[in-house]
């Protein structure tokens, strides 16, 4: 890269698709710390987290050409990493479920924009007021962009329960903000 300014994540990923090892190294430097920290908050086993992060970046190296977003490289990498962690915690899902899990994080981004207020305190306080079970569901589905089924597997509860808890969480939040 001979750009004088810092390359963007998109540019780095395009270079990685071109098998540029240095670009992968820079992406790793930028994203590995926060992805690892975020995974650690979900899973107490450091070994599983290390392997999931390593696998994730290996996948980034191998599939960079398949990235089709714009400016969402961080979220894409996170999506790969959380799914690697899930695969580690449970054996591989049957094909149909895996196909259903291929949805992008786009669904979460819309919802997350609604929750952008988390930085501004009021919503954060409201979230704090939720019970731990409801908060866990909100975190898994909205913040992590997992599907209902993935959240169910992560939390070890049936997916029906995930849906009902999500409804209750939304209702509680609306009341808290009203």
């Amino acid at each position, binding site marked *: 890269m001979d750009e004088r300014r810092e390359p963007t994540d998109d540019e780095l990923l395009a270079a990685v698709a*071109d*098998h*540029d*090892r*240095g*670009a992968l*190294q820079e992406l790793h430097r930028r994203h590995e710390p926060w992805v690892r920290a975020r995974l650690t908050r979900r899973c107490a086993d450091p070994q599983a987290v290390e392997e999931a992060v390593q696998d994730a970046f290996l996948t980034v190296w191998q599939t960079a050409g398949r990235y089709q977003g714009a400016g969402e490289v961080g979220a894409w990498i996170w999506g790969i990493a959380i799914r690697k962690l899930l695969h580690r915690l449970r054996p591989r899902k049957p094909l149909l479920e895996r196909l259903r899990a291929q949805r992008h994080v786009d669904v979460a981004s819309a919802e997350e924009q609604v929750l952008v207020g988390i930085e501004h305190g009021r919503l954060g306080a409201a979230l704090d007021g939720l019970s731990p079970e409801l908060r866990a569901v909100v975190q898994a589905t909205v913040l992590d962009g997992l599907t209902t089924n993935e959240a169910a597997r992560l939390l070890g509860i049936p997916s029906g329960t995930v849906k009902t808890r999500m409804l209750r969480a939304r209702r509680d939040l609306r009341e808290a903000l009203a």
Partner: protein
Amino acid sequence: MSAVVATRGLTRRFGRHVAVADLDLRIDRGGVVGLLGPNGSGKTTLLRMLATVLSPSAGEVEVFGLDPTRSDERTAIRRRLGYLPQEPTLYAGFTAFDVVDYVAVLKEMTDRAVRQDEVRRVLGAVGLTDAMHKKVRTLSGGMRQRVAIACALLGTPDLLVLDEPASGLDPDQRLQLRSVLSAHGQSGTVLLSTHHTTEVAAFCQRVLVLLDGTVRFDGTPAELAHLAEGHVWVDRSGTHDPTRSWVSADGTVRAIGSPPAGAELLEPTIDDGYLLLARGLTVAG
């Protein structure tokens, strides 16, 4: 102390053409030796014979004190030798890493982990760390040349025989190459051929000028330049022979040969010494 390379009456013919004629040479361990000469002077033929790739028509050659015409000794030589051919060809569908890894296998590096470390080391030495996983067909000419150089560096050979290593490299890459080869010359021996006197001047401790298959000069770069002492002057005559003079960067005309009386003499460079030899204007004493 036994020599790294020793030849006696080394000769090589192709049909009726004599490429290398009755050459006596001795290269001791350590340092960088430059081989200068025009196309067709026998540089490549000589290097191929020293690299155990070509057999001599007559005379003797010894590398590390071993005889390359005997197959077991030839293999022993090759284990301590790194060779860069003049026009390396690489399979376009391999990555740079694949190519170097393949040559590492040919150099009998059977342990996968050791081989991986060594391949990464030599690719790093030639500045191809970031590009090592790109396919050869996507690499520029200079990068492909550097892949070939990396292959020669595998296993840190005691003798490096390089045929025009700087070909296709830009000035920045040449600088990097020089530092790699100079470092190699500290512990091992480097023999390289080139057209460019600047390469020789920059970092060769010894230079051999080869013309028509014989060594016409053997000494230091400074001595080669000194050959032209008193034979380089400023030509203000207005009429000048283009084979012996040219306009230099500051606008004056620089001429080589026998200066007229009272001419302003100039400090000779290696280029001048080499040109004098090549044009047959003087004989190295």
